[in-house]
């Protein structure tokens, strides 16, 4: 028999409470992280999104793996679900099954193609489906799920064609194949390149000779340049003399005696010119006086004309000469005066 008293449930101490918070918070953090990871992965991989199968054929499965993403317009729209070898007699070598998520299968139309291109430098390849522009959509939804697909231009229930619509492949060579081809091209181009390098070698030889000549030329030029400073200083002196009118060049161009004679002649000439100008001044003053005299003659003539006119007018009114200046009356159509 167990006579021990039943242990009384003790109230939790502060330490226990803090320890509990410490543990619970850590577990909650871990669970929240895991929940976010699950949510993000589900969003990324589209776990709850309807999918539609497609298939295509390629000549080589190199660089392709089940689960590899399939791209369209830069988005991951699905993944490779199956990679299988075809029977030996088949034209195509490899069958590739693809699943595409909603809504991306809506972009795939009858003219869409699947391009198998290199992805990176490590021999990986990826499938990229091109968006359709013409023809008809390849998938028809019913209740938000793919219901019918386009097979040979006809709408067929998805259940009747579980592989899905066929996508025309456009297979590009893998990086290694392209590298091989590039290598072959390089090998073919090598003779030409060798010829070119030989020519280049000749050109370089000529260039070497040219360079030697240039070196000599430059050396000579250096010497010439070294001799230039005295010449330049002479030129500087000459230009300084040119700026000075009484410099040696000025004396050489116009001698001193010639300049003295020239000055005397010019002084004489200036004196003669002065005298001529004085005479001309006298003549003009005489002319001025003459013109003023003429002005008085003209006024006398004008007075004489006025007086003569007055005389003639007086003679016309004189009784003796009035008949000599009689005037005929003007002829008119007006009736005679009564």
């Amino acid at each position, binding site marked *: 028999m167990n006579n021990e008293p039943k242990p009384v449930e003790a109230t939790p101490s502060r*330490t226990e409470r*803090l320890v509990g918070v*410490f*543990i619970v*918070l*850590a577990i909650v*953090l*871990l669970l929240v992280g895991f929940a976010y*990871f699950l949510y993000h992965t589900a969003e990324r991989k589209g776990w709850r999104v309807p999918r539609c199968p497609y298939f295509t054929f390629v000549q080589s499965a190199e660089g392709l793996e089940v689960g590899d993403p399939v791209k369209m317009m830069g988005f991951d729209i699905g993944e490779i679900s199956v990679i299988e070898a075809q029977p030996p007699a088949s034209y195509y070598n490899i069958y590739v099954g693809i699943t595409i998520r909603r809504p991306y299968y809506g972009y795939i139309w009858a003219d869409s193609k699947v391009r198998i291109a290199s992805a990176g430098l490590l021999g990986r390849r990826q499938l990229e489906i091109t968006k359709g522009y013409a023809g008809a959509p390849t998938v028809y939804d019913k209740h938000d799920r793919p219901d019918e697909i386009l097979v040979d231009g006809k709408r067929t229930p998805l259940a009747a064609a579980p592989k899905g619509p066929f996508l025309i492949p456009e297979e590009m060579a893998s990086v290694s194949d392209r590298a091989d081809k590039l290598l072959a091209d390089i090998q073919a181009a090598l003779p030409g390149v060798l010829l070119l390098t030989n020519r280049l070698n000749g050109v370089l030889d000529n260039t070497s000779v040219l360079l030697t000549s240039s070196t000599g030329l430059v050396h000579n030029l250096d010497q010439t340049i070294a001799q230039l400073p005295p010449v330049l200083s002479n030129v500087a002196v000459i230009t300084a003399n040119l700026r000075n009118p009484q410099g040696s060049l000025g004396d050489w161009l116009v001698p001193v005696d010639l300049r003295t004679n020239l000055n005397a002649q010019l002084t004489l000439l200036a004196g003669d010119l002065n005298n001529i100008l004085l005479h001309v001044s006298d003549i003009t003053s005489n002319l001025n006086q003459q013109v003023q005299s003429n002005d008085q003659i003209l006024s006398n003539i004008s007075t004489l004309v006025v007086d003569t006119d007055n005389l003639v007018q007086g003679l016309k009114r004189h009784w003796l000469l009035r008949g000599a200046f009689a005037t005929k009356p003007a002829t008119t159509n007006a009736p005679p005066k009564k």
Partner: protein
Amino acid sequence: MQTWVDNVGQHALRSPAALRHRFRFGRAAFTATLSVPRALRPALREATAEQIWRSGVRQLPFIGLVGLALGLLVVGQAVALLRQVSAQRYIGTVMVTVVLRELGPLLTVFLVAARAGTATVVELGAMTITGKAAHVDRLGMRTMRELVVPRVTGLAISVFCLTIYLIAVALASGYLVAFLQGVPLRAGAYCGQLAEAMHWMDFVFIAAKAALFGVVIAIVSCYHGLEQLLRIEEFPAATTRAVVESLAICVVLDAVFLAGYFLR
């Protein structure tokens, strides 16, 4: 006179026996942990809580500081390098690979071994010297349950929790550093990068690794604490041995987990 060659031979002969001894102690501690009678559970729970308080909750500020520095250093350096190749969008991947998988758990182990492991050695050693605890060879199951089991459980839980806190702080401070350095990365995109770089095994491995590291530190520390220590002067050597052994075993276990990543 003993030469270094004699020393090597001596250690080579003793090592297998010492390893067997430690392994036997670890198995006993593990068995005792898994088979605690119902009547002892309340007392054990209290002792475990005390242990978690000492080796877990009280280490939290320091772990937070280390996590902050870790995020700052890793992201600071990573941003500087990734900018040169315009690959800032791999910051999340770098954080997951470096902090979450490797540095987070290992740094936590280093800190806990250095602080809680040494304390355990000294505490148990003092109890052995004063006669409050039996020597490791004469340790009964009851004493084992009273002294070792709370430490094993407490340290396992503490290291697990501290690892999660350290990783959380490092990831948050990493984003803060990236933000302050002007990396055009939104918080949502950063979380998306982290989630994209993670694998579901990361969560399992972090939890398992951290708990296992805690168990290793506890068992090794308890073993060295309950070893026959005759003098106080032997304590420093015993604590050093305990820390070094704990870390060595943890690093080896980490390598095993790393192999698990490659095999997935």
